[in-house]
């Protein structure tokens, strides 16, 4: 249940940007989330809606973009998407490097000045 902590960080960043850009209202925020983090979208949106009450983000939509877990094999160098938590490469090696799937990035926001 660290979704609230994630949202608190997110809001802090958004409010800083809103102040810099002199925004009066934020209407949507796009967040990119890696699938390996196993964040529960409903909980995240619930946390968001609770935390933004009374701020300029009140009523804003939190859009989530999922990033599949992607790795590169250190043996044969191919890149593949991990399904069902199987990190084994088709060449048989399990020595892989994470490329994507752990990130949590604020991509963009929409707002009015």
């Amino acid at each position: 249940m660290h979704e609230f902590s994630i949202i608190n960080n997110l809001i802090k960043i958004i409010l800083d940007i809103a102040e810099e850009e002199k925004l009066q209202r934020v209407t949507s925020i796009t967040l990119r989330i890696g699938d390996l983090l196993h964040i529960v979208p409903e909980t995240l949106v619930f946390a968001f809606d609770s935390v933004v009450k009374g701020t300029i983000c009140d009523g804003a939509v939190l859009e989530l973009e999922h990033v599949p877990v992607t790795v590169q094999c250190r043996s044969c160098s191919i890149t593949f998407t991990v399904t069902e938590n199987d990190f084994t490469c088709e060449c048989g090696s399990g020595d892989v490097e994470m490329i994507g799937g752990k990130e949590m990035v604020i991509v963009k926001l929409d707002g009015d000045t």
Partner: protein
Amino acid sequence: MEYKIMKSVMGESEGIAESVRSQLKENGVVMINIIGSPGAGKTSLLEMTLDHFRDTFSLAVIEGDLATSRDAERLKRESLPMVMINTDGGCYLQPLSIQSALNEFDLSSLDAVLIENVGNLVCPAHFDLGENCKVAVVSTTEGDDKPIKYPLLFREADVAILNKIDLAQYTNFNIDSFKRDLKQLHDTIPLFEMSCTNNSGMAAWYEWLESKITGPAV
């Protein structure tokens, strides 16, 4: 109007973790973050480890606990520097708390700091505390499906410990299935099977930890 941002949500936390890592490196201190579910044997592992290295290394402990100081009481040793972090219900330790805790120690006199994270397989896996290694602790009484159910922890961990191996015969824990799932998730992770109660299988863990403490800085 649209504003492009591309900023990590955990950026501030990651920044603190990096500064913790630099502080440790400057002082030649290795930090190990022990993560596991409640009852897996994290405190027992620490007790055994502290006693084993009593005359070899200068160790310190950061003890994370939801609500009580019971684990800290168990770990009390003469001349063991220890900081207890009570998270008041928070289900993980954060790098900022670790940074404050480290200020309580004389880092120049230490070889390693061992962190016992809050008992939880989900949230602690998400937070880089500035440690050099993460250790995932599970036990045979919890069931063999933990790696596949908590993939982030077992991907992030540098070593896995399967504790209470002496009790496996009294449970339906399928060790082959456990190892197969772990291998599928993280092929290169070392696994130490042990019992902190009867002291079996501890040597491999001690050897691994010693190599991390005396090895080249990372």
